């Protein structure tokens, strides 16, 4: 049986911070769900949880490799963040290839008249009967930030669990579980589609922070107890 000391508390705090990073990061990921797969909405044509989890877990693979050779928390977390950003960025680029060359639509945001970053006008490029398509610059940058936070959050959870039990397979699987719980909670909050940080739905973040905090705290306590006692 494990003892509940100061370091246990630190691990729980790390797991909670990781979970919050994932929950907030998902809000940055531009996903249009099923409509985007028919070039009917701005964002990547898949589900929020799917894309965020795909990128976060790619980051987890990078973080796992880094943690096998170093104990430096910053290196491990950043390695995970960079891995997730690469996955997210390549996916969005290739998604844009398909929108531009395969479907023949330019990337455009529908929730704003002018792109907040480039100041480009958006409405003239929105196809009739659609609410935008593709991944415009503002959504792309937002997605990159989402990848960074998701990858960092997943890696931090993995780091905390690895310090408790030292078994990489078990820690990775628990980290995946905690990651997906937070991604799903955030996905409910944005109801499946969001264009990025310029989307009005982004303002709902405080609710997700509360929900993710409670969920991750409960899971974190159990995860530490289970892993400590294993």
């Amino acid at each position, binding site marked *: 049986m494990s003892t509940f000391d100061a370091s246990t508390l630190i691990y729980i705090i790390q797991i909670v911070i990781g979970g919050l990073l994932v929950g907030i990061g998902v809000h940055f990921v531009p996903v249009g769900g099923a409509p985007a797969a028919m*070039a009917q909405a701005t964002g990547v044509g898949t589900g929020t949880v799917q894309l965020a989890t795909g990128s976060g877990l790619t980051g987890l693979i990078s973080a796992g490799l880094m943690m096998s050779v170093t104990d430096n928390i910053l290196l491990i977390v950043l390695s995970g963040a960079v891995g997730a950003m690469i996955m997210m960025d390549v996916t969005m680029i290739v998604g844009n290839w398909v929108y531009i060359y395969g*479907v023949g639509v330019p990337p455009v945001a529908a929730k704003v008249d002018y792109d907040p970053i480039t100041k480009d006008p958006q409405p003239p490029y929105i196809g009739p009967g659609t609410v935008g398509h593709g991944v415009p610059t503002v959504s792309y940058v937002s997605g990159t930030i989402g990848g960074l936070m998701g990858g960092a959050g997943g890696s931090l959870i993995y780091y905390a669990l690895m310090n408790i039990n030292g078994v990489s397979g078990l820690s990775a699987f628990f980290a995946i579980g905690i990651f997906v719980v937070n991604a799903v909670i955030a996905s409910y909050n944005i109801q499946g589609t969001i264009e990025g940080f310029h989307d009005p739905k982004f303002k709902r973040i405080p609710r997700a922070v509360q929900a993710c905090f409670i969920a991750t705290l409960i899971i974190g306590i159990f995860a530490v107890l289970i892993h400590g006692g294993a």
Partner: protein
Amino acid sequence: MDMVSMGLLAAMGALATIAGASEDLESDVGSQSNPNSQVQLAAQVGHTHRIYNKAISGEPPSNALYAALAAVTASVLMSDAYGMNAFFSIAVGSLVAAVFNGILSMTSYMGRNTSQARFNQYVYLDVLRSHTTTIMAHAYITAFCVVAISYIMTAPWLPIQHPFPLPVIAFTWGIALGAIGSSTGDVHYGAEREFQQYPFGAGLNAANSGDIVTKGEAGLRSSIDNAWFCAKFGGPVTGLAFGLIVFLDNWRTTIFDPATQGWYAIATGVLIVVLLNVYNRILEVRSKKRYGPYPEYAGDIKA
């Protein structure tokens, strides 16, 4: 960095490219991902069809399942108890994954189409026979490639030495691969192939939802026709996406030893991310310049 590591990295990139392409085509033949919403809607708005219909789950969980199944089987066969050679173990593991895929695909097709009987949607046994085997074949290739990548990353006699066990890493790559396939290649199927009767260069107008093409070049269109079309663009670019991710992510830790040059590996990754952001901006500007604003637009904002 040594030559063996670089060679293995190249092999991983190539395997990932094949896995990406076959994953996307598997979901196109089966009509699995988001575009399937239109296939399900089609019968309800009066367009009965011969498109396969197997929305088993989102692509990431289903591919994670196949990859993990194949990897678990391969691990058991490779263990000391059985001592099978790695190549054959992965082949047998992938076969198990393909069989699972076939079972799920068939039950899914029959369940969904019988539930739409009130809209005159039939269960076509010839579609079931010809398509299920095609889907299983693609799933086999995908599972084989993903487990082979995972094996290269974990095998004790190879240089990478990733700490995750083979099934966990295969599961993780399976999720990533499904997410990529769902995000990239499927758009080609959903936005272009399903709605080819509408002019090129427009997303699906919400008013046309469910109006998918049901007639083929000769006779009725089947999902194998869809895979033929998507194999020209959607499939290969999905492969390129997964290949790039596996390659770029591992390349940074191959040229820079993570134990001694970890910061360089991270800086290289950040540089790649910055370049991709710049490239996306170039793509956006060029596409808007090439296509111009929509003629139907009647607002005040100038393009």
